[in-house]
């Protein structure tokens, strides 16, 4: 029980990661694949944040009331995740615009049916 309690956030995060990868590998619809990418991103972000967590820590912000005693959670992963979220948005927006173009050309989003290029 203790094990699950300790690692619940990791399990959740990697659950999201694996569901995301599974969607990307298996699904045929491009929009579905992009949804998989977004879930994958969320999972990774959750994982990074939970690395930085310290039990009974507080947010790394000094408010006016002095509270030096409480330990603060690690600010670095939070900074990394801010960056990662924005990068994720960038990739998703580009992917969706490509999906719109692809639909214009082929009239379908099914990746198995789109086989102009051969090995």
């Amino acid at each position, binding site marked *: 029980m203790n094990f699950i309690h300790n690692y619940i956030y990791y399990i959740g995060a990697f659950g999201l990661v694996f569901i995301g990868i599974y969607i*990307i590998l298996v699904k045929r619809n491009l929009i579905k*694949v992009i949804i998989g990418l977004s879930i*994958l991103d969320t999972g990774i972000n959750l*994982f990074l944040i939970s690395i930085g967590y310290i039990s009974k820590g507080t947010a790394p912000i000094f408010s006016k009331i002095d509270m030096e005693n409480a330990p603060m959670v690690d600010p*670095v992963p939070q900074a990394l995740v801010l960056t990662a979220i924005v990068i994720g948005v960038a990739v998703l927006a580009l*992917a969706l615009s490509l*999906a719109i173009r692809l639909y214009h050309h082929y009239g379908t989003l099914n990746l198995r049916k789109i086989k102009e290029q051969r090995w």
Partner: protein
Amino acid sequence: MVNPVLLIAVPLGLSFTIPLFGLISRKIEKYVPVVALIFNLVISSILIPEVIKQPINVFIGGFQPPFCINLVVGPVGILFSALIALVGLLASIYALDYIREGAKQLYHMLYLLLLTGATGVVLTGDIFNLFVFFEILCISSYALVAYLGDKAGIESAVKYLIQGAMGSSLMLIGIGLLYGLFGTLNMADIASNIDTVSSISIFVPMVLLITGLGVEAAIFPLNAWLPDAHSSAPSSISAILSGIAIKVGIYAVARVVFTIFGASSILQFLAILGLLTLLIGEVSAFCQSNIKRLLAYSSIGQIGLVVFALGMGISYGVVGGLFQLISHALSKALLFFAVGYMIYRSGSMDISKLEGMGKQMPLTSFAFTIGAFSLVGLPPFIGFPSKFLIIRAALSKQELLFTILVAFVLLGTVIEGAYFFRVVQVLYFKGNHTDLQREEAPIPALIPIVILMVLIVAIGVYPKSLTRMLNSASSELLNRVAYIRSVLR
């Protein structure tokens, strides 16, 4: 002393200003990348002698590492940034005339940002910063592959994007694991602490990082995107993707393997992967009838050779690998430049449609021939010393495995020679075209072609001019202790 951070900051700032220039006049904007890259080339060549003496460390924000992001401008970094600036400059001159359709302003911005991202990757000393610049490189190349907006371009951009995004996600997981294990993101700091953790838990982030970076570096099982993307992008972009983007991926893999992990166990595996990549690339190139796909597959083959050379893990091998990297960048850029206008004139990418080009575009065809001979490794060109170094290094290892592998490398070279000679034969000797008018490529395209030809022959005749540089670069890659000490004084 010039501050190396300008190598990144100035092109970035200039690419932000392109829309502003666009408001003044539509004609200026396409010269902005040229100016920025000339600047970069000058700065890197000024820095070369200083860097060979002593690597320069730049601390951004004025804090000490590992608490800030630092740039490590060692011989490897400056070598790559000079190469990026050189090939990028030539391709931007080429693009002045070649890019005629679509949103030109956006093309030039994306192009400059791609090269900025590449420069950032090779100079940075922080693993997350490497990831960020890698994303700049990748995202701009997805957009540039789709730039023409035709069916093939969009489709290959989609493939490229999905695989690339998966790769960078895996890389981010790897970075997260490293941060969890070591509590720092500075590459030198991680490298100095690498022995404090059990080997299995290091192995996992290493595999994740190599997989993530390997997508961009096009190592064998991860390179399905490459032929499509390279063949359907505009030719100037194909030259950059082949000449620079893959090289940056290789650099990142080498940095991760050699410097961070100092892993000798995985090297042999890498060498074999590289050989597989080489053989698969060359054999598939042999079967192609589309000229740009042929060149793309041949890029895969050459990358395999570079990975093989780096995988030997000895000083000679690394020197040979880096030399091969330079020679491939120059020759492949030349080939793509030449092919771009041949396709433009003949209106088709089919090899058989290129008959008689030797008469129609004599200089361009001559350039193609030189590039092809150099890639195959014929003596007076740059490809010869690089291949020679790699083979000598493999033989000097005196292991049965590597001696057998060398035989496969030679086999790959033979196949490569076969298909390139076939193309050259089509260019010059096939068909009967006495009625063709001479119609050369325009001047802005000929300038980079001629410069590249001169460089290929000059370095091929005097390979010694690069050796000092390459020697210090390879010792930087192989000597992790010196690297760590130079960062964390």
